[in-house]
Protein backbone atom coordinates (compact mmCIF):
# COMPACT_ATOMS: atom_id res chain seq x y z
CA UNK A 1 0.00 0.00 0.00
CA UNK A 2 2.61 2.51 1.09
CA UNK A 3 4.82 1.77 -1.91
CA UNK A 4 2.01 2.42 -4.33
CA UNK A 5 1.18 5.68 -2.59
CA UNK A 6 4.84 6.62 -2.74
CA UNK A 7 5.10 5.74 -6.40
CA UNK A 8 1.92 7.63 -7.04
CA UNK A 9 3.33 10.75 -5.43
CA UNK A 10 6.56 10.36 -7.34
CA UNK A 11 4.83 9.81 -10.63
CA UNK A 12 2.38 12.62 -10.17
CA UNK A 13 5.27 15.04 -9.82
CA UNK A 14 6.94 13.38 -12.76
CA UNK A 15 3.66 13.64 -14.63
CA UNK A 16 3.35 17.34 -13.89
CA UNK A 17 6.91 17.87 -15.06
CA UNK A 18 6.36 16.14 -18.37
CA UNK A 19 2.89 17.51 -18.94
CA UNK A 20 3.76 20.70 -20.86
CA UNK A 21 5.59 18.63 -23.45
CA UNK A 22 2.45 16.56 -24.00
CA UNK A 23 0.09 19.42 -24.59
CA UNK A 24 1.03 20.43 -28.14
CA UNK A 25 0.45 16.96 -29.56
CA UNK A 26 -3.10 16.82 -28.19
CA UNK A 27 -4.90 17.99 -31.37
CA UNK A 28 -3.60 15.27 -33.70
CA UNK A 29 -4.58 11.95 -32.26
CA UNK A 30 -2.61 8.84 -33.07
CA UNK A 31 -4.35 6.05 -34.94
CA UNK A 32 -5.90 3.65 -32.48
CA UNK A 33 -6.01 -0.09 -33.10
CA UNK A 34 -9.38 -0.13 -31.43
CA UNK A 35 -10.83 1.10 -34.73
CA UNK A 36 -9.97 -2.28 -36.22
CA UNK A 37 -12.10 -3.90 -33.50
CA UNK A 38 -14.90 -1.39 -33.41
CA UNK A 39 -15.58 -0.92 -37.13
CA UNK A 40 -16.66 -4.55 -37.75
CA UNK A 41 -18.69 -4.57 -34.53
CA UNK A 42 -20.48 -1.35 -35.45
CA UNK A 43 -21.22 -2.75 -38.92
CA UNK A 44 -22.60 -5.98 -37.42
CA UNK A 45 -24.86 -4.03 -35.07
CA UNK A 46 -26.14 -1.76 -37.83
CA UNK A 47 -26.56 -4.47 -40.47
CA UNK A 48 -30.04 -5.62 -39.38
CA UNK A 49 -31.25 -2.01 -39.74
CA UNK A 50 -29.71 -1.70 -43.18
CA UNK A 51 -31.35 -4.96 -44.23
CA UNK A 52 -34.66 -3.79 -42.83
CA UNK A 53 -34.52 -0.49 -44.73
CA UNK A 54 -33.40 -2.17 -47.95
CA UNK A 55 -36.05 -4.87 -47.75
CA UNK A 56 -38.78 -2.29 -47.17
CA UNK A 57 -37.98 -0.65 -50.54
CA UNK A 58 -37.30 -3.87 -52.49
CA UNK A 59 -39.63 -5.51 -55.00
CA UNK A 60 -41.50 -8.30 -53.20
CA UNK A 61 -40.25 -10.98 -55.59
CA UNK A 62 -36.59 -10.28 -54.90
CA UNK A 63 -37.14 -10.96 -51.21
CA UNK A 64 -38.23 -14.54 -51.87
CA UNK A 65 -35.49 -15.57 -54.28
CA UNK A 66 -32.25 -17.24 -53.33
CA UNK A 67 -29.60 -16.01 -53.43
CA UNK A 68 -31.19 -12.65 -52.59
CA UNK A 69 -29.55 -9.64 -54.24
CA UNK A 70 -27.51 -7.70 -51.66
CA UNK A 71 -28.97 -4.49 -53.07
CA UNK A 72 -32.45 -4.31 -54.66
CA UNK A 73 -32.48 -4.01 -58.47
CA UNK A 74 -34.71 -0.95 -58.22
CA UNK A 75 -36.41 1.03 -55.48
CA UNK A 76 -40.12 0.59 -54.94
CA UNK A 77 -42.49 1.79 -52.28
CA UNK A 78 -45.01 -0.99 -52.90
CA UNK A 79 -44.43 -2.30 -49.39
CA UNK A 80 -45.40 1.03 -47.84
CA UNK A 81 -48.36 1.45 -50.20
CA UNK A 82 -49.66 -2.01 -49.24
CA UNK A 83 -48.97 -1.33 -45.56
CA UNK A 84 -50.98 1.87 -45.50
CA UNK A 85 -53.82 0.75 -47.78
CA UNK A 86 -54.34 -2.88 -46.76
CA UNK A 87 -53.72 -2.72 -43.04
CA UNK A 88 -54.83 -0.61 -40.09
CA UNK A 89 -51.28 0.46 -39.31
CA UNK A 90 -52.23 4.15 -38.97
CA UNK A 91 -54.84 3.27 -36.41
CA UNK A 92 -52.38 1.06 -34.50
CA UNK A 93 -49.79 3.81 -34.54
CA UNK A 94 -52.42 6.20 -33.21
CA UNK A 95 -53.35 3.70 -30.49
CA UNK A 96 -49.73 3.32 -29.45
CA UNK A 97 -49.27 7.09 -29.35
CA UNK A 98 -52.36 7.36 -27.13
CA UNK A 99 -51.14 4.56 -24.82
CA UNK A 100 -47.60 5.91 -24.51
CA UNK A 101 -48.70 9.53 -24.27
CA UNK A 102 -51.17 8.79 -21.48
CA UNK A 103 -48.63 6.59 -19.71
CA UNK A 104 -45.94 9.27 -19.83
CA UNK A 105 -48.20 12.10 -18.65
CA UNK A 106 -49.72 10.00 -15.90
CA UNK A 107 -46.33 8.74 -14.72
CA UNK A 108 -44.91 12.25 -14.61
CA UNK A 109 -47.79 13.55 -12.51
CA UNK A 110 -48.44 10.55 -10.23
CA UNK A 111 -44.85 9.40 -9.73
CA UNK A 112 -43.47 12.85 -9.00
CA UNK A 113 -46.27 13.51 -6.53
CA UNK A 114 -45.66 10.16 -4.85
CA UNK A 115 -41.88 10.46 -5.05
CA UNK A 116 -42.08 13.87 -3.41
CA UNK A 117 -44.42 12.60 -0.75
CA UNK A 118 -42.13 9.70 0.13
CA UNK A 119 -39.04 11.90 0.07
CA UNK A 120 -40.24 14.95 1.98
CA UNK A 121 -43.50 14.56 3.83
CA UNK A 122 -43.88 12.85 7.15
CA UNK A 123 -47.03 10.83 7.62
CA UNK A 124 -48.32 7.63 9.15
CA UNK A 125 -47.60 4.59 7.00
CA UNK A 126 -44.94 6.24 4.87
CA UNK A 127 -42.22 3.62 5.39
CA UNK A 128 -44.58 0.68 4.97
CA UNK A 129 -46.02 2.18 1.80
CA UNK A 130 -42.64 2.80 0.26
CA UNK A 131 -41.35 -0.62 1.25
CA UNK A 132 -44.35 -2.32 -0.38
CA UNK A 133 -43.82 -0.35 -3.58
CA UNK A 134 -40.14 -1.35 -3.70
CA UNK A 135 -41.12 -4.97 -3.06
CA UNK A 136 -43.33 -4.98 -6.15
CA UNK A 137 -40.25 -4.47 -8.33
CA UNK A 138 -39.26 -8.05 -7.42
CA UNK A 139 -42.56 -9.54 -8.62
CA UNK A 140 -42.28 -10.77 -12.21
CA UNK A 141 -45.04 -9.58 -14.55
CA UNK A 142 -45.78 -13.19 -15.52
CA UNK A 143 -47.12 -13.78 -12.02
CA UNK A 144 -49.56 -10.90 -12.40
CA UNK A 145 -50.82 -11.64 -15.91
CA UNK A 146 -53.48 -14.21 -15.05
CA UNK A 147 -55.16 -12.43 -12.10
CA UNK A 148 -54.91 -9.06 -13.86
CA UNK A 149 -56.55 -10.59 -16.92
CA UNK A 150 -59.41 -11.94 -14.81
CA UNK A 151 -59.68 -8.62 -12.96
CA UNK A 152 -59.84 -6.62 -16.20
CA UNK A 153 -62.37 -9.07 -17.64
CA UNK A 154 -64.57 -8.48 -14.58
CA UNK A 155 -64.21 -4.72 -14.93
CA UNK A 156 -64.98 -4.90 -18.66
CA UNK A 157 -61.62 -3.38 -19.54
CA UNK A 158 -60.46 -6.09 -21.95
CA UNK A 159 -60.21 -5.52 -25.71
CA UNK A 160 -60.04 -1.75 -25.37
CA UNK A 161 -57.17 0.69 -25.20
CA UNK A 162 -57.81 1.07 -21.48
CA UNK A 163 -56.48 -2.45 -20.97
CA UNK A 164 -53.13 -1.39 -22.39
CA UNK A 165 -53.07 1.95 -20.55
CA UNK A 166 -54.09 1.11 -16.98
CA UNK A 167 -51.02 -0.99 -15.99
CA UNK A 168 -48.80 1.88 -17.17
CA UNK A 169 -50.51 4.70 -15.25
CA UNK A 170 -47.90 4.58 -12.49
CA UNK A 171 -44.72 2.54 -12.08
CA UNK A 172 -42.77 1.55 -8.97
CA UNK A 173 -39.56 2.41 -10.80
CA UNK A 174 -40.89 5.90 -11.48
CA UNK A 175 -41.69 6.52 -7.82
CA UNK A 176 -38.29 5.24 -6.78
CA UNK A 177 -36.52 7.40 -9.36
CA UNK A 178 -38.37 10.57 -8.41
CA UNK A 179 -37.93 9.95 -4.69
CA UNK A 180 -34.18 9.53 -5.10
CA UNK A 181 -34.07 12.74 -7.07
CA UNK A 182 -36.09 14.76 -4.55
CA UNK A 183 -33.92 13.47 -1.69
CA UNK A 184 -30.92 14.97 -3.46
CA UNK A 185 -32.52 18.43 -3.67
CA UNK A 186 -31.76 20.90 -0.87
CA UNK A 187 -34.84 21.43 1.29
CA UNK A 188 -34.09 25.13 1.91
CA UNK A 189 -35.76 26.28 -1.29
CA UNK A 190 -39.01 24.61 -0.35
CA UNK A 191 -38.79 25.93 3.19
CA UNK A 192 -38.37 29.42 1.78
CA UNK A 193 -41.46 28.89 -0.33
CA UNK A 194 -43.44 27.73 2.67
CA UNK A 195 -42.30 30.72 4.68
CA UNK A 196 -43.55 32.90 1.88
CA UNK A 197 -46.95 31.32 2.42
CA UNK A 198 -47.15 28.67 -0.26
CA UNK A 199 -49.04 25.48 0.36
CA UNK A 200 -47.30 22.14 -0.10
CA UNK A 201 -48.98 21.73 -3.44
CA UNK A 202 -47.90 25.19 -4.61
CA UNK A 203 -44.35 24.54 -3.46
CA UNK A 204 -44.41 21.28 -5.36
CA UNK A 205 -45.69 22.69 -8.63
CA UNK A 206 -43.87 26.02 -8.65
CA UNK A 207 -40.54 25.27 -7.01
CA UNK A 208 -39.82 21.54 -6.97
CA UNK A 209 -41.19 20.33 -10.28
CA UNK A 210 -39.33 22.86 -12.47
CA UNK A 211 -36.08 21.69 -10.82
CA UNK A 212 -36.87 18.05 -11.53
CA UNK A 213 -36.56 18.26 -15.32
CA UNK A 214 -33.63 15.81 -15.64
CA UNK A 215 -35.39 13.19 -13.51
CA UNK A 216 -38.64 13.75 -15.40
CA UNK A 217 -36.81 13.25 -18.70
CA UNK A 218 -35.45 9.93 -17.43
CA UNK A 219 -38.90 8.89 -16.24
CA UNK A 220 -40.49 9.88 -19.56
CA UNK A 221 -37.97 7.87 -21.58
CA UNK A 222 -38.32 4.84 -19.33
CA UNK A 223 -42.10 4.95 -19.65
CA UNK A 224 -41.95 5.58 -23.40
CA UNK A 225 -39.65 2.60 -24.03
CA UNK A 226 -41.66 0.27 -21.83
CA UNK A 227 -45.14 1.22 -23.00
CA UNK A 228 -44.27 1.64 -26.70
CA UNK A 229 -42.56 -1.76 -26.95
CA UNK A 230 -44.79 -3.72 -24.58
CA UNK A 231 -45.98 -6.91 -26.23
CA UNK A 232 -47.03 -9.63 -23.84
CA UNK A 233 -49.69 -7.73 -21.90
CA UNK A 234 -51.51 -6.22 -24.95
CA UNK A 235 -51.24 -9.65 -26.57
CA UNK A 236 -53.23 -11.16 -23.73
CA UNK A 237 -55.60 -8.31 -23.04
CA UNK A 238 -56.50 -7.10 -26.55
CA UNK A 239 -58.02 -9.38 -29.17
CA UNK A 240 -59.87 -6.72 -31.10
CA UNK A 241 -57.75 -5.47 -34.00
CA UNK A 242 -59.25 -2.00 -33.79
CA UNK A 243 -57.61 -1.62 -30.40
CA UNK A 244 -54.30 -3.22 -31.42
CA UNK A 245 -51.12 -1.43 -30.48
CA UNK A 246 -48.41 -1.15 -33.12
CA UNK A 247 -46.41 -4.00 -31.58
CA UNK A 248 -49.43 -6.24 -31.56
CA UNK A 249 -50.13 -5.43 -35.20
CA UNK A 250 -46.54 -6.16 -36.21
CA UNK A 251 -46.49 -9.43 -34.28
CA UNK A 252 -49.80 -10.38 -35.86
CA UNK A 253 -48.38 -9.84 -39.37
CA UNK A 254 -46.13 -12.82 -38.68
CA UNK A 255 -49.08 -15.15 -39.04
CA UNK A 256 -51.34 -13.19 -41.40
CA UNK A 257 -48.79 -11.88 -43.94
CA UNK A 258 -46.19 -14.56 -43.66
CA UNK A 259 -44.14 -14.01 -46.82
CA UNK A 260 -45.02 -10.43 -47.71
CA UNK A 261 -41.61 -9.27 -46.64
CA UNK A 262 -41.86 -5.87 -48.27
CA UNK A 263 -44.97 -5.07 -46.27
CA UNK A 264 -43.57 -6.63 -43.10
CA UNK A 265 -40.36 -4.63 -43.33
CA UNK A 266 -42.21 -1.41 -44.15
CA UNK A 267 -44.28 -2.04 -41.03
CA UNK A 268 -41.11 -2.63 -39.07
CA UNK A 269 -39.62 0.64 -40.26
CA UNK A 270 -42.78 2.50 -39.23
CA UNK A 271 -42.74 0.79 -35.82
CA UNK A 272 -39.07 1.37 -35.03
CA UNK A 273 -38.25 4.66 -36.72
CA UNK A 274 -39.98 6.95 -34.19
CA UNK A 275 -38.02 5.48 -31.28
CA UNK A 276 -34.75 5.37 -33.24
CA UNK A 277 -35.06 9.03 -34.23
CA UNK A 278 -35.94 9.94 -30.70
CA UNK A 279 -32.95 7.97 -29.44
CA UNK A 280 -30.59 9.77 -31.81
CA UNK A 281 -32.09 13.07 -30.74
CA UNK A 282 -31.90 12.45 -26.98
CA UNK A 283 -29.09 9.91 -26.75
CA UNK A 284 -27.66 11.38 -23.56
CA UNK A 285 -30.97 11.05 -21.71
CA UNK A 286 -31.45 7.51 -23.00
CA UNK A 287 -28.06 6.45 -21.71
CA UNK A 288 -28.79 8.07 -18.35
CA UNK A 289 -32.08 6.17 -18.20
CA UNK A 290 -30.43 2.86 -18.99
CA UNK A 291 -27.70 3.44 -16.43
CA UNK A 292 -30.17 4.45 -13.74
CA UNK A 293 -32.62 1.63 -14.38
CA UNK A 294 -29.68 -0.74 -14.22
CA UNK A 295 -27.68 0.55 -11.32
CA UNK A 296 -30.47 1.61 -9.03
CA UNK A 297 -33.21 -0.74 -10.20
Amino acid at each position, binding site marked *: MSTTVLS*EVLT*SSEYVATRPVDIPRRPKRRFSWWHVV*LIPIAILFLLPFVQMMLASVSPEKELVTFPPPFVPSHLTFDGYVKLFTQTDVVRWLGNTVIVSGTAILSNIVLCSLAGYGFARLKFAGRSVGFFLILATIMIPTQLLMIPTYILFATLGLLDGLGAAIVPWLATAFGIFLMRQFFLSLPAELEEAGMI*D*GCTRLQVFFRIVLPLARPAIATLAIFTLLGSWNDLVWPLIAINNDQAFTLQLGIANFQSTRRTQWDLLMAG*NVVATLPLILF*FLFAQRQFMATMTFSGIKG
Partner: protein
Amino acid sequence: MLNARRAPVLESVTTAAPGGKPRGRESDRRGRRPWRASLTGWGFVGPATLIILGLSIFPALWAFVLSLQNWDGFSEAQFVGGANYAGLVSDDEFGKAVVNTLGFTLLFVPASVLLGLFLAVALNRSIRFIGIYRTAIFVPFVVSAASTGVLTTYLFSPQYGVVNNVLRVFGLPQQGWLEDQSQAMVVIAIMSLWGQAAFTTVIYLAALQDIPGELLEAARIDGANHWQTFWRVVWPQLSPVTIFVAIWQTIGAIQLFDLVYTTTRGGPLDATKTIVYFLYEKAFKTLQFGYGSAAAYVLFAATLLITIIVVVYSRKRNLEAF
Protein backbone atom coordinates in the same frame (compact mmCIF):
# COMPACT_ATOMS: atom_id res chain seq x y z
CA MET B 1 -44.43 34.80 -8.24
CA LEU B 2 -44.96 32.71 -5.16
CA ASN B 3 -48.11 34.50 -4.00
CA ALA B 4 -46.31 35.48 -0.86
CA ARG B 5 -49.33 36.89 0.92
CA ARG B 6 -51.85 34.30 -0.02
CA ALA B 7 -53.43 32.45 2.85
CA PRO B 8 -52.19 28.88 3.25
CA VAL B 9 -54.69 26.31 2.11
CA LEU B 10 -53.62 22.70 2.48
CA GLU B 11 -50.98 22.77 5.11
CA SER B 12 -50.16 25.89 7.05
CA VAL B 13 -46.59 26.85 7.70
CA THR B 14 -46.91 30.47 8.52
CA THR B 15 -43.72 31.10 10.40
CA ALA B 16 -42.37 34.60 10.02
CA ALA B 17 -44.68 35.49 7.17
CA PRO B 18 -45.19 39.26 7.10
CA GLY B 19 -47.86 40.03 9.60
CA GLY B 20 -48.24 36.33 10.23
CA LYS B 21 -48.39 34.23 13.34
CA PRO B 22 -45.43 33.71 15.66
CA ARG B 23 -42.78 31.02 15.16
CA GLY B 24 -43.27 27.62 16.71
CA ARG B 25 -46.88 27.56 15.75
CA GLU B 26 -46.27 24.92 13.08
CA SER B 27 -45.12 22.19 15.42
CA ASP B 28 -47.97 22.98 17.79
CA ARG B 29 -50.51 22.51 15.06
CA ARG B 30 -48.87 19.36 13.75
CA GLY B 31 -48.84 17.94 17.24
CA ARG B 32 -52.48 18.61 17.70
CA ARG B 33 -53.58 17.44 14.29
CA PRO B 34 -51.43 14.60 12.97
CA TRP B 35 -54.27 13.54 10.69
CA ARG B 36 -53.65 16.68 8.70
CA ALA B 37 -50.06 15.70 7.86
CA SER B 38 -51.27 12.19 7.03
CA LEU B 39 -53.93 13.59 4.78
CA THR B 40 -51.41 15.70 2.90
CA GLY B 41 -48.95 12.80 2.70
CA TRP B 42 -51.47 10.32 1.40
CA GLY B 43 -52.85 12.97 -0.91
CA PHE B 44 -49.44 13.02 -2.56
CA VAL B 45 -48.61 9.31 -2.56
CA GLY B 46 -52.10 7.80 -2.54
CA PRO B 47 -53.07 7.65 -6.22
CA ALA B 48 -49.83 6.09 -7.45
CA THR B 49 -49.58 3.74 -4.46
CA LEU B 50 -53.13 2.55 -4.98
CA ILE B 51 -52.53 1.78 -8.66
CA ILE B 52 -49.23 -0.01 -8.10
CA LEU B 53 -50.26 -2.09 -5.10
CA GLY B 54 -53.67 -2.77 -6.62
CA LEU B 55 -52.06 -4.11 -9.78
CA SER B 56 -49.24 -6.08 -8.14
CA ILE B 57 -49.55 -7.08 -4.48
CA PHE B 58 -53.24 -7.90 -4.81
CA PRO B 59 -52.89 -9.94 -8.05
CA ALA B 60 -49.77 -11.65 -6.68
CA LEU B 61 -51.74 -12.93 -3.68
CA TRP B 62 -54.67 -13.85 -5.90
CA ALA B 63 -52.34 -15.79 -8.20
CA PHE B 64 -51.34 -17.92 -5.24
CA VAL B 65 -54.97 -18.69 -4.44
CA LEU B 66 -55.55 -19.49 -8.12
CA SER B 67 -52.57 -21.84 -8.15
CA LEU B 68 -54.37 -24.00 -5.58
CA GLN B 69 -57.47 -24.25 -7.73
CA ASN B 70 -58.72 -25.75 -10.97
CA TRP B 71 -60.48 -23.01 -12.86
CA ASP B 72 -61.20 -22.24 -16.51
CA GLY B 73 -62.78 -18.85 -15.88
CA PHE B 74 -66.34 -20.02 -16.51
CA SER B 75 -67.32 -23.00 -14.39
CA GLU B 76 -67.09 -23.25 -10.63
CA ALA B 77 -63.53 -23.09 -9.27
CA GLN B 78 -62.37 -26.27 -7.53
CA PHE B 79 -59.91 -26.25 -4.65
CA VAL B 80 -57.20 -28.84 -5.39
CA GLY B 81 -54.43 -27.91 -2.93
CA GLY B 82 -50.96 -28.66 -4.20
CA ALA B 83 -52.17 -30.80 -7.11
CA ASN B 84 -51.16 -28.21 -9.73
CA TYR B 85 -47.62 -28.06 -8.35
CA ALA B 86 -47.43 -31.84 -8.21
CA GLY B 87 -48.73 -31.91 -11.77
CA LEU B 88 -45.93 -29.64 -12.94
CA VAL B 89 -43.28 -31.93 -11.49
CA SER B 90 -44.51 -34.90 -13.53
CA ASP B 91 -45.37 -32.86 -16.66
CA ASP B 92 -42.84 -33.70 -19.39
CA GLU B 93 -43.83 -30.62 -21.36
CA PHE B 94 -43.02 -28.40 -18.39
CA GLY B 95 -39.78 -30.30 -17.87
CA LYS B 96 -38.81 -29.60 -21.44
CA ALA B 97 -39.69 -25.91 -20.98
CA VAL B 98 -37.43 -25.76 -17.92
CA VAL B 99 -34.57 -27.40 -19.82
CA ASN B 100 -35.02 -25.02 -22.77
CA THR B 101 -35.13 -22.00 -20.47
CA LEU B 102 -31.97 -23.13 -18.69
CA GLY B 103 -30.29 -23.72 -22.02
CA PHE B 104 -31.09 -20.21 -23.17
CA THR B 105 -29.94 -18.77 -19.84
CA LEU B 106 -26.61 -20.60 -20.06
CA LEU B 107 -26.10 -19.34 -23.60
CA PHE B 108 -27.27 -15.80 -23.06
CA VAL B 109 -26.08 -14.68 -19.62
CA PRO B 110 -22.32 -15.38 -19.86
CA ALA B 111 -22.28 -14.10 -23.44
CA SER B 112 -24.10 -10.92 -22.56
CA VAL B 113 -21.88 -10.20 -19.55
CA LEU B 114 -18.67 -10.81 -21.51
CA LEU B 115 -19.87 -8.91 -24.55
CA GLY B 116 -20.96 -5.97 -22.39
CA LEU B 117 -17.62 -5.93 -20.62
CA PHE B 118 -15.69 -6.12 -23.88
CA LEU B 119 -17.75 -3.41 -25.58
CA ALA B 120 -17.51 -1.13 -22.54
CA VAL B 121 -13.72 -1.46 -22.50
CA ALA B 122 -13.61 -0.84 -26.25
CA LEU B 123 -15.88 2.21 -26.02
CA ASN B 124 -14.26 3.70 -22.94
CA ARG B 125 -11.71 5.83 -24.77
CA SER B 126 -11.68 9.11 -26.60
CA ILE B 127 -10.81 8.12 -30.13
CA ARG B 128 -12.24 9.52 -33.33
CA PHE B 129 -15.77 8.33 -34.33
CA ILE B 130 -16.36 6.99 -30.83
CA GLY B 131 -19.80 8.63 -30.86
CA ILE B 132 -20.72 6.68 -34.00
CA TYR B 133 -19.53 3.39 -32.50
CA ARG B 134 -21.53 4.02 -29.33
CA THR B 135 -24.67 4.90 -31.25
CA ALA B 136 -24.33 1.79 -33.44
CA ILE B 137 -24.12 -0.48 -30.41
CA PHE B 138 -26.83 1.29 -28.38
CA VAL B 139 -29.50 1.87 -30.98
CA PRO B 140 -30.77 -1.76 -31.17
CA PHE B 141 -31.81 -1.34 -27.52
CA VAL B 142 -34.86 0.70 -28.53
CA VAL B 143 -36.09 -1.88 -31.06
CA SER B 144 -39.07 -3.85 -29.76
CA ALA B 145 -39.27 -7.62 -29.46
CA ALA B 146 -41.98 -7.68 -32.12
CA SER B 147 -39.76 -5.88 -34.63
CA THR B 148 -36.72 -7.93 -33.66
CA GLY B 149 -38.79 -11.05 -34.18
CA VAL B 150 -39.80 -10.08 -37.72
CA LEU B 151 -36.22 -9.06 -38.46
CA THR B 152 -34.86 -12.34 -37.10
CA THR B 153 -37.25 -14.41 -39.17
CA TYR B 154 -36.18 -12.47 -42.26
CA LEU B 155 -32.41 -12.51 -41.67
CA PHE B 156 -32.28 -16.17 -40.63
CA SER B 157 -34.78 -17.56 -43.12
CA PRO B 158 -33.40 -20.93 -44.34
CA GLN B 159 -34.85 -20.36 -47.81
CA TYR B 160 -34.09 -16.73 -48.66
CA GLY B 161 -32.23 -15.41 -45.63
CA VAL B 162 -29.31 -13.03 -45.76
CA VAL B 163 -27.33 -15.05 -43.22
CA ASN B 164 -27.48 -18.18 -45.33
CA ASN B 165 -26.51 -16.08 -48.34
CA VAL B 166 -23.39 -14.91 -46.51
CA LEU B 167 -22.58 -18.55 -45.72
CA ARG B 168 -23.06 -19.38 -49.40
CA VAL B 169 -20.64 -16.61 -50.46
CA PHE B 170 -18.00 -18.09 -48.15
CA GLY B 171 -18.74 -21.59 -49.44
CA LEU B 172 -20.14 -22.79 -46.10
CA PRO B 173 -23.09 -25.21 -45.79
CA GLN B 174 -26.62 -23.78 -45.46
CA GLN B 175 -28.30 -23.97 -42.05
CA GLY B 176 -31.88 -24.40 -40.92
CA TRP B 177 -31.61 -21.74 -38.17
CA LEU B 178 -35.05 -21.12 -36.65
CA GLU B 179 -36.39 -24.25 -38.32
CA ASP B 180 -33.65 -26.44 -36.88
CA GLN B 181 -34.32 -27.84 -33.41
CA SER B 182 -30.74 -27.49 -32.22
CA GLN B 183 -30.13 -24.04 -33.70
CA ALA B 184 -33.36 -22.15 -33.02
CA MET B 185 -32.46 -21.24 -29.44
CA VAL B 186 -29.00 -20.12 -30.53
CA VAL B 187 -30.51 -17.74 -33.08
CA ILE B 188 -32.84 -16.32 -30.41
CA ALA B 189 -29.86 -15.87 -28.08
CA ILE B 190 -27.87 -14.07 -30.80
CA MET B 191 -30.69 -11.65 -31.51
CA SER B 192 -31.28 -11.11 -27.79
CA LEU B 193 -27.62 -10.20 -27.49
CA TRP B 194 -27.97 -7.78 -30.38
CA GLY B 195 -30.83 -6.01 -28.62
CA GLN B 196 -29.52 -6.24 -25.07
CA ALA B 197 -25.79 -5.59 -25.46
CA ALA B 198 -26.41 -1.88 -24.88
CA PHE B 199 -27.70 -2.55 -21.39
CA THR B 200 -24.72 -4.45 -20.01
CA THR B 201 -22.36 -2.17 -21.92
CA VAL B 202 -23.77 1.02 -20.49
CA ILE B 203 -23.66 -0.36 -16.94
CA TYR B 204 -20.03 -1.47 -17.33
CA LEU B 205 -19.17 1.83 -19.00
CA ALA B 206 -20.51 3.77 -16.02
CA ALA B 207 -18.57 1.49 -13.66
CA LEU B 208 -15.34 1.81 -15.64
CA GLN B 209 -15.60 5.57 -15.52
CA ASP B 210 -16.00 5.39 -11.74
CA ILE B 211 -12.65 3.67 -11.30
CA PRO B 212 -10.25 6.30 -9.99
CA GLY B 213 -7.59 7.23 -12.55
CA GLU B 214 -4.88 7.17 -9.89
CA LEU B 215 -5.42 3.44 -9.46
CA LEU B 216 -4.68 2.75 -13.11
CA GLU B 217 -1.80 5.20 -13.10
CA ALA B 218 -0.31 3.49 -10.04
CA ALA B 219 -0.59 0.08 -11.67
CA ARG B 220 1.06 1.36 -14.82
CA ILE B 221 3.91 2.88 -12.86
CA ASP B 222 4.39 -0.34 -10.93
CA GLY B 223 5.13 -1.93 -14.28
CA ALA B 224 1.85 -3.60 -15.13
CA ASN B 225 0.95 -3.86 -18.82
CA HIS B 226 -2.57 -3.20 -20.11
CA TRP B 227 -3.57 -6.84 -19.80
CA GLN B 228 -2.34 -7.14 -16.21
CA THR B 229 -3.85 -3.80 -15.25
CA PHE B 230 -7.19 -4.93 -16.55
CA TRP B 231 -7.35 -8.34 -14.86
CA ARG B 232 -5.59 -7.40 -11.61
CA VAL B 233 -6.92 -3.90 -11.03
CA VAL B 234 -9.98 -3.15 -13.15
CA TRP B 235 -11.75 -6.54 -13.09
CA PRO B 236 -11.78 -6.87 -9.26
CA GLN B 237 -13.13 -3.32 -9.03
CA LEU B 238 -15.95 -4.30 -11.36
CA SER B 239 -17.03 -7.41 -9.45
CA PRO B 240 -20.10 -5.85 -7.73
CA VAL B 241 -21.28 -4.64 -11.13
CA THR B 242 -20.62 -8.05 -12.67
CA ILE B 243 -22.70 -9.74 -9.99
CA PHE B 244 -25.50 -7.25 -10.45
CA VAL B 245 -25.50 -7.55 -14.24
CA ALA B 246 -25.40 -11.35 -14.04
CA ILE B 247 -28.41 -11.45 -11.70
CA TRP B 248 -30.32 -8.96 -13.79
CA GLN B 249 -29.67 -10.78 -17.05
CA THR B 250 -30.47 -14.15 -15.48
CA ILE B 251 -33.84 -12.89 -14.26
CA GLY B 252 -34.51 -11.53 -17.74
CA ALA B 253 -33.36 -14.75 -19.40
CA ILE B 254 -35.56 -17.10 -17.39
CA GLN B 255 -38.52 -14.89 -18.30
CA LEU B 256 -37.88 -15.17 -22.04
CA PHE B 257 -41.13 -14.93 -23.97
CA ASP B 258 -41.45 -12.06 -26.45
CA LEU B 259 -38.78 -13.11 -28.92
CA VAL B 260 -39.99 -16.72 -28.86
CA TYR B 261 -43.52 -15.59 -29.54
CA THR B 262 -42.46 -13.39 -32.45
CA THR B 263 -40.14 -15.96 -34.07
CA THR B 264 -40.81 -19.65 -33.47
CA ARG B 265 -43.90 -19.74 -31.21
CA GLY B 266 -42.15 -22.40 -29.20
CA GLY B 267 -41.24 -24.60 -32.16
CA PRO B 268 -39.75 -26.45 -33.96
CA LEU B 269 -41.07 -29.43 -31.98
CA ASP B 270 -41.11 -27.44 -28.72
CA ALA B 271 -37.37 -26.73 -28.99
CA THR B 272 -37.83 -23.11 -27.96
CA LYS B 273 -40.78 -23.49 -25.61
CA THR B 274 -39.76 -21.62 -22.47
CA ILE B 275 -41.37 -21.58 -19.03
CA VAL B 276 -43.20 -18.33 -19.73
CA TYR B 277 -44.33 -19.58 -23.12
CA PHE B 278 -45.64 -22.73 -21.43
CA LEU B 279 -47.43 -20.55 -18.87
CA TYR B 280 -48.92 -18.38 -21.63
CA GLU B 281 -50.25 -21.41 -23.51
CA LYS B 282 -51.70 -23.05 -20.42
CA ALA B 283 -53.38 -19.91 -19.11
CA PHE B 284 -54.53 -18.16 -22.27
CA LYS B 285 -54.84 -20.91 -24.89
CA THR B 286 -56.27 -23.77 -22.84
CA LEU B 287 -57.65 -21.57 -20.01
CA GLN B 288 -56.03 -23.55 -17.19
CA PHE B 289 -55.72 -20.52 -14.92
CA GLY B 290 -54.77 -22.56 -11.87
CA TYR B 291 -52.10 -24.63 -13.62
CA GLY B 292 -50.66 -21.51 -15.27
CA SER B 293 -50.55 -19.68 -11.94
CA ALA B 294 -48.67 -22.59 -10.38
CA ALA B 295 -46.09 -22.38 -13.19
CA ALA B 296 -45.82 -18.62 -12.58
CA TYR B 297 -45.18 -19.21 -8.88
CA VAL B 298 -42.49 -21.78 -9.66
CA LEU B 299 -40.85 -19.15 -11.88
CA PHE B 300 -41.11 -16.52 -9.16
CA ALA B 301 -39.57 -18.90 -6.62
CA ALA B 302 -36.72 -19.68 -9.02
CA THR B 303 -36.07 -15.96 -9.54
CA LEU B 304 -35.91 -15.33 -5.80
CA LEU B 305 -33.74 -18.38 -5.22
CA ILE B 306 -31.21 -17.41 -7.87
CA THR B 307 -30.98 -13.88 -6.54
CA ILE B 308 -30.50 -15.06 -2.97
CA ILE B 309 -27.88 -17.68 -3.91
CA VAL B 310 -25.82 -15.23 -5.97
CA VAL B 311 -25.98 -12.51 -3.32
CA VAL B 312 -25.05 -14.89 -0.49
CA TYR B 313 -22.27 -16.48 -2.55
CA SER B 314 -20.77 -13.14 -3.51
CA ARG B 315 -20.90 -11.86 0.07
CA LYS B 316 -19.13 -14.98 1.25
CA ARG B 317 -16.47 -14.71 -1.41
CA ASN B 318 -15.85 -11.07 -0.68
CA LEU B 319 -15.45 -11.90 3.00
CA GLU B 320 -12.87 -14.54 2.18
CA ALA B 321 -11.06 -12.23 -0.18
CA PHE B 322 -10.58 -9.50 2.40
